[in-house]
C-alpha cells in the first residue's frame, strides 16, 4: 500500500465532495423547481459523464487545459498556474465527472418533496432562503447525504479522467486506482491486490450506507 496515494485520494475526494455540495445544491434545487422548457438540456449536460467514456471527457479537458485551450488560458492569466498534470487539474476533472453523482440524488430529493410545505412556509412570512434551510434541507437530507457519499466514493475510484489529465506523478496526481494500474504494469501483483481489496471493501461499505439511508428516507 502506498500511503502517499491514500492521502492524496482522500484529499481529492473530500475537496470534490465539498465543491459539489456548494455547487450542486443550488443547481439541483433549480432543476427540481424550474418550469423552464429547456431544462432537459441542462439535465442532459449534467448526466453526460454517466455515459461518456472517461477517456473522452479526459481528452477534451486536457485539450481545454492546454496552453492554448480556454481553461488553460484563464488559469494562466488569472492565477499564473498551469493545469495539466497538477492536483488542480485532476480536481477540476473530478468535479465535472462527478456532477451527476451529486446533482441527481439532490434533485430527486427536492423534486420528491411536497411543494405545498414550501408554499406554506412562504405564506407564514418566512423568506425563500430561510424556507430552504428550515424546511427543504431537513426534509431532503437523506437524498443529499446519499449524493455526497456517492460523490466521495466515486472520486476515490476515479481512474480514466485522472490518468488523462493528471498522468501518474507520485504525490501529485497518483491516486489509489492509478497506483493499482501502475503496480500491475510493474508485475507487482501483491501490492495491486492489497490496494484493490481495500477499495472493494470501502465501496461495499459505502453502498450499504447509502442503501440504508434510502430505506430511512422512505420510512420517514
Amino acid at each position, binding site marked *: 500500500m502506498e500511503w502517499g496515494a491514500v492521502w492524496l485520494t482522500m484529499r481529492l475526494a473530500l475537496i470534490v465532495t465539498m465543491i459539489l455540495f456548494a455547487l450542486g445544491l443550488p443547481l439541483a434545487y433549480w432543476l427540481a423547481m424550474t418550469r423552464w422548457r429547456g431544462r432537459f438540456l441542462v439535465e442532459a449536460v449534467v448526466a453526460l459523464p454517466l455515459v461518456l467514456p472517461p477517456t473522452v471527457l479526459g481528452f477534451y479537458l486536457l485539450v481545454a487545459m492546454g496552453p492554448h485551450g480556454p481553461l488553460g488560458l484563464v488559469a494562466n492569466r488569472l492565477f499564473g498556474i498551469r493545469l495539466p498534470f497538477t492536483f488542480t487539474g485532476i480536481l477540476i476533472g473530478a468535479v465535472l465527472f462527478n456532477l451527476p453523482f451529486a446533482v441527481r440524488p439532490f434533485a430527486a430529493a427536492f423534486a420528491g418533496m411536497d411543494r405545498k410545505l414550501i408554499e406554506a*412556509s*412562504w405564506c*407564514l*412570512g*418566512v423568506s425563500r432562503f430561510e424556507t430552504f434551510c428550515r424546511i427543504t434541507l431537513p*426534509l431532503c437530507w437523506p437524498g443529499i447525504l446519499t449524493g455526497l457519499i456517492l460523490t466521495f466514493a466515486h472520486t476515490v475510484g476515479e481512474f480514466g479522467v485522472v490518468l488523462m489529465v493528471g498522468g501518474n506523478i507520485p504525490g501529485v496526481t497518483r491516486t489509489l486506482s492509478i497506483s493499482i494500474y501502475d503496480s500491475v504494469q510493474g508485475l507487482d501483483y501483491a501490492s495491486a491486490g492489497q490496494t484493490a481489496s481495500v477499495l472493494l471493501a470501502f465501496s461495499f461499505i459505502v453502498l450499504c450506507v447509502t442503501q440504508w439511508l434510502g430505506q430511512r428516507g422512505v420510512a420517514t
Partner: protein
Amino acid sequence: MTTDLVARFQKRFVRSATIDIDFVQSTTGFSVTALIGPSGCGKTTMLRCLAGLTRPDQGTIQFRGRTWFDSTTKTELSPQQRDIGFLFQDYALFPHLTVEENIGFGLRHLTDAERRSRVTEILKQFDLKGLERRLPRQLSGGQQQRVALGRVLVRKPKLLLLDEPLSALDALLREQLRGELRQILADFGTPVILITHDRVEAISLADRVAVMSAGRIEQIGTIQEVFTRPSNASLARLVGVETVAPGEIVDTREGLATVSVGSASVLAVAPSTQTRLVHVCIKGEDVSLCRELTGPTTVRNQLPAIIKSLTPEGPLVRVVLDCGFELTSLITRPASDDLQLHVGKCVTAMIKAPAIHLIPRSV
C-alpha cells in the same frame, strides 16, 4: 375604497377555461366569503393568485389601497409581503417539526419570550395543551386541522384564505367543527375568504357567497340572495337549494322542531347539535302546491301562500311564494297550467317535515 380587497385579473390555461376574476370584498372587521362552485372552476387558482402563489397573466390586485399585483407596472408582492394566512386543504403541516414548532414557525422575528407566550395562547385557545411535543403524524385529523389553523392565526394576518378547511375530516367531525370554526374565526375578527364545494358548509360558515363557474364569479351576494334568487337557471342547479331563510327553533319535541321563520312556523326534523338559531333550507322540488285542502294528509306543513312571481325554466316553472317568508317551489309546466297559477293567486304550499333541512347558524 381603501379598506377593500379589489381583485380584477385573468389567468389563462392551455387545457381548461381562462380564469377571469372581478371580486371586491370589504375588509373592515369580520366577514366570511365562501367561494363555491364545481371542481375545476378556478376556485383554488383564484385563492392562490390572492396569496401570491400563482401569478395572474393580467390585471390588478389591491388590498387596503396597497398594490399586491399589477401587470402593467410589473408589480408583484411575494406571499411573504402580503401578510395573509393561507390554510391548505391537507393542512401542509411540517412533518419534522412538533406542534409547538409548527405553530411558532412564522414567529422567528419575535423575541423568545414573546413567541412562547403567543404560542401558549394559541395552544390554549385551540385545545392543544399537552400535545406541544407531538409530531403532526401523531395527531388526529381534527387536531391537525386546529394546529394548521393556529399556525396561521398566531401571526394575526390581515386576510385569511382557507382552501376547503373541513374537507379532509370525516363526516361526523366535519359537522361538529362547522359551527366551532365560524366561532373561532369570529373571535379573531379577520376577514376570511374560503373555498368549499359543499353548500351546507357555505351556508353555515359564510356571510356572503360567490358562486363560481367556468372560471368566472357568476353571482355574489348574501346567502339568502344567492340561494333564493340565483341569477340564472344553471346557477340555480349549482346551488341546489331554492329556499334559505333564517329561523329560530321555538320548541323541540320527540326529535321534531317547531321553527318560527318569518311570520310563519314550520315543523322539521331537529338538528343533531344543540342550537336555537338555524337556516331553514328547502329544495324547490320538495314544495308542492294545491288550491285548497281536501282532507287529512301526511304532509305536516301546509302554509297559505300568495304567488309573487312565476318564471318558466324549460319544462319547469319556478314559483316564488310569500307564506310569511319567501319560499320557492319548482313545479312542472302542466301542473302550473292545471292549477291556473298567476301572480297574486292564493294557494297552499305543502312541505313534508323531513324535506326541511335545518343548518345551525350563529349571529
